[in-house]
């Protein structure tokens, strides 16, 4: 079961992409940048699902009499669903970002927090 690093190259690439996306989401304050990081995280999951379905010498799972060995079609179906759902959630997140920009005038996380704190301080000082 367990081989060297070369047998797990696809897993390692997927993990590195995933961590790059995670780092963007955690370290950057800009909401659009965060969403791009989230979509990188998502594509790493595509790779994680598709790579184990590949067979050396196999072809794409479209049946033809010339071929006998096909890659596993099930992860392809799951990831097709995931791509479409991913773009729907991305659109929803961008709509939220646009609304936040209208309400606060910025899409930087720090400035939004600062604006919220200023409002709270003003309300606390009033009564």
């Amino acid at each position: 079961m367990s081989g060297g690093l070369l047998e797990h190259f696809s897993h390692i690439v997927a993990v590195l992409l995933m961590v790059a996306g995670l780092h963007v989401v955690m370290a950057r304050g800009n909401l659009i940048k965060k969403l791009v990081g989230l979509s990188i995280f998502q594509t790493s999951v595509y790779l994680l699902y598709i790579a184990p379905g590949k067979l050396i010498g196999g072809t794409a799972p479209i049946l033809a009499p010339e071929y006998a060995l096909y890659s596993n079609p099930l992860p392809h179906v799951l990831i097709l669903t995931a791509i479409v759902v991913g773009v729907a959630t991305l659109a929803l997140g961008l709509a939220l970002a646009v609304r936040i920009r209208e309400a606060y005038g910025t899409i930087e996380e720090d400035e939004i927090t600062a604006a919220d704190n200023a409002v709270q301080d003003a309300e606390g000082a009033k009564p």
Partner: protein
Amino acid sequence: MMALAVLVLVRTRNLFAVIVLSGIYSFLMATLLVALDAVDVAMTEAAVGAGVSTVLLLGALHLCKSEEAKPVHRPWLPLSLSLATAGLLIYGALGLPDFADPAAPIHRHVAPRYLQNEVDVPNVVTAVLASFRGYDTLGETTVVFTAGAGIIALLRRRRHPRNEDGDHGK
């Protein structure tokens, strides 16, 4: 090349460049998926990931500022957390079956039955999507519908105070 695109993407602060790079990254990912025999997924990734997502991001960028502010925090905490996660995940991945191992459980379970052409459609991915796992597709449609309804609910209030000329958004 993909690693390069991602590295530049993490470092760049001009959001327009970030969006163009994420489109390039999606095309590279689609190429990789073709190499892994997932042609349907590659087509969807090129159309949806590189096409629709880029258009949506550019539309949102049009409504927001295109320059990211300089980060005020030191990035060490997120960086160390990410690296620790990477270490743990790679350690876990070493226990998974090898790449392209025909004896792996994924090739033993339902896949052989899917490949027997029971529904008489030569493209197995289509057969599984529409027939064997049709309820998944129904659920996907529900999610897309909910997301569309949410976007309309979020962006509609904005149009009433102003006059109804520029309809950006979706």
